């Protein structure tokens, strides 16, 4: 018989983005329900259900952030960090354009790397100021990139992996980087 278990990645995403106050209970409840469904239906159906619940939980989190007290402060904090990130990225772009010739491979590879590093740093800084504001920052990153790709600001169409980095990995880094940092910190404390 094949062994099966709840999707680890989905658990990790939920534990990374949900507030500390209820992440453990929420993921625990989902795992409980996963086992019930895996026994009553099939592990595959339960696995699909788990991922469905993970995707459905994210809009609820955004909505709850907008409704809870202090949402405006979080929004302002996220906006301030986002503006700083944009300034840093533009400065880096200027430096790259100045010192690297257009044909060089580094000019193609460096901007997405800088973008990801900036989003990770932005996420970590914001998490220290207001943990729950990171969702707003991820939304800013995603929405501005959607607008930029929609209006086609570049004369030459960017490669597909640029779009993937900007739309998926960028917002994901904002949310995941603080969680990784938190775990690394707690491990170093434990040692």
């Amino acid at each position, binding site marked *: 018989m094949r062994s099966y278990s709840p999707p680890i990645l989905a658990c990790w995403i939920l534990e990374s983005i949900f507030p500390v106050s*209820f992440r453990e*209970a929420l*993921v*625990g409840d989902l795992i*409980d329900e996963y*086992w019930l469904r895996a026994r009553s239906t099939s592990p595959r159906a339960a696995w699909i259900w788990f991922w469905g619940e993970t995707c459905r939980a994210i809009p609820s989190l955004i909505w709850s952030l907008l409704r*809870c007290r202090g949402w405006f402060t979080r929004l302002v904090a996220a906006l301030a960090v986002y503006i700083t990130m944009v300034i840093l990225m533009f400065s880096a772009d200027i430096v790259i354009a100045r010192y690297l010739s257009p044909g060089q491979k580094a000019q193609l590879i460096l901007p997405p790397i800088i973008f990801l590093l900036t989003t990770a740093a932005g996420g970590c800084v914001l998490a220290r100021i207001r943990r729950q504001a990171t969702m707003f920052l991820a939304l800013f990153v995603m929405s501005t990139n959607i607008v930029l790709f929609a209006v086609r600001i570049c004369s030459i169409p960017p490669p597909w992996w640029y779009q993937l980095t900007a739309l998926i990995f960028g917002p994901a880094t904002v949310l995941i980087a603080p969680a990784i940092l938190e775990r690394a910190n707690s491990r170093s404390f434990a040692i």
Partner: protein
Amino acid sequence: MKRGELLGSLEHILLLALMRLEEAHGMDIRREIEARTGRDISIGAVYATLERLEEKGYVSSFIAEATPERGGRSKRIFQLRAAGKRALQVSEETIRSMTAGIKVRLNTT
């Protein structure tokens, strides 16, 4: 509950479910709502709303023991508080006074 402040529809349903169950965790509440209303609410929405209700002082919670089935994660059990009961009474009274005299019209389509 402040004067004029009403419960949101999900808040209202959650408090009623909690009143029925007396003590329950998120998934129990979700199942109760689904069984009675047919509404399939995401667990994220249930917890986010419960968190808000706790912030308002309408519900309280305590942590139950962790089990290996849940991957070592503990359960959070919710209970309705007196303020939550009062909020439900106020909501019921508001709905009753607003629907008084128009029940016949509501039943005719």
